[in-house]
């Protein structure tokens, strides 16, 4: 039982959590670099998507 529990935790960490966090951070990185153009106040603003 103890061994199974350890294997389960190992499975969760290596197969589920690490890829998930890696993926999330990758998405976040892409998300940070997203540049948007916004028309307002008779100007076209060049902004990062996180500015708003």
């Amino acid at each position: 039982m103890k061994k199974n529990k350890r294997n389960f935790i190992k499975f969760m960490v290596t197969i589920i959590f690490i890829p998930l966090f890696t993926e999330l951070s990758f998405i976040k990185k892409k998300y940070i670099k997203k540049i948007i153009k916004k028309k307002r106040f008779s100007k076209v603003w060049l902004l990062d998507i996180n500015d708003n």
Partner: protein
Amino acid sequence: MIINNLSNIEKKKFYVIIIGSGPAGISTALRLEEKKIETLLIEAGDINYRPESAEFLKVNSIGDHYGDLSGNRLRQFGGTSGLWGGNCNPMNYNNFFDWPIKKSDLDKYNDEASNILNLKEKFFLESLNEELNIYNLAWSNVKFGKDYLEHIRKSKFIHLSLNSTFLSFNGKEKNISSINCRKGNKDFKLMSKFFILSCGGIENSRLLLWSRYKDNKLFSSKLPIGNYYMHHPYHFVGNGIINYKKLNNYYSEKNIVNYPIVTCNSNLYVEASEQLLNEKNIINSGIYINFKNINKNNDFIKQLSCVAPKFIKKLYDDINAKDIYEIDVWTMQEQEPIKENCIKLSDELDPYNIPLTKLIWKKLPSEIKSARIIMEEIGNFFIKKEIGRLALENHLYDQNVNYETVSGNHQMGGTRIGINEEDSVVDENLKIHGLNNLFVTGSSVFRTSGHSHPTFTIVQLSLRLADHIIQYKTKKNF
């Protein structure tokens, strides 16, 4: 020396007569003087400005609004350098793509041109990233009329005749033998081996068009005199905010050695790299980023707070720091050379019955497209490196939005350099195609305008022309 009475030199045959005493004419004369070659410098104006001289410079401007050209040119000793801003920078390598000479042909004259213009700073061009370069302007305090008058007065080899207006060329079978010019109420015939026309970006074309009209056997009808006129459209393209400390850190990361020290009202100059020009098929623009002290209460910062609240909140942590600047962004653009932008003779006449100038000039779509692409590259660079934010003017995106270009200070083209008379007026040595001894110098010979201020290139070209004439003298093959 100054010649007051032209009757005394009517029988003298000079080696070179230079028509026009602006930066081009004086630079050429100074170089020829070094080799003890006698020149006669003909200046239509006086030592100081006379209001009546403006009667000769009137322009009938057709097309897009060009600004008031009466304030952009001076008919006096020293030419338009009497009112210029003094900014200098050399043309880039890629501007010479279509020229019959290379940048290196002019770079030989960098030191001498800098010396004539009394430039204290060295020029630099640094790569900011793959798409953008930064560069500098050097400032000249030289007013050619004021600074070279005493030198010319004392010179044994430069003869200066003021208030002497060029009227026409005389000659036959590809050779100019003399010019007619008027001083006071009297006309004179002046002889020389070589003649150089250096009356400025518009006058060179006007006088050549008039000369061809007077004698169509001497000048080929094929020469595109007056065509491919160019100007540097200069307009406001946006504003923004910049963290100069972060920009400085970027310089260090990238080992950028040459960059301007920023203070309030100083400028950072940015242009497109060759890679960006080729990739996007655009013409170049000098982007002038002017730094101002930040004011939390001004409209732009308030607007930025609405459009980018998270960014401005983050910025407010640093806003009292001296590293944050508000910026105004202007662009001085290269203009495509097209036949349709041209100088012609007007139906109106000047006081000596020579037709005045009709200028046909239009803004071109490539200018706005290019400015937009370069500005977006700068904006993206600011975002990626967390350096700042830009807001661009609507006219960069909407062709229906009208925009004004400032002044017409830089007049280029009209007698452009090239290899044949079908598409150019002068050859690689600035000699008019089909003639043996008439040369043109100044910004009118520019084949492309680049975005650089023209005076440095004008002086380089004039020094090179003088060397070409010196070669004739030393080889004695003329």
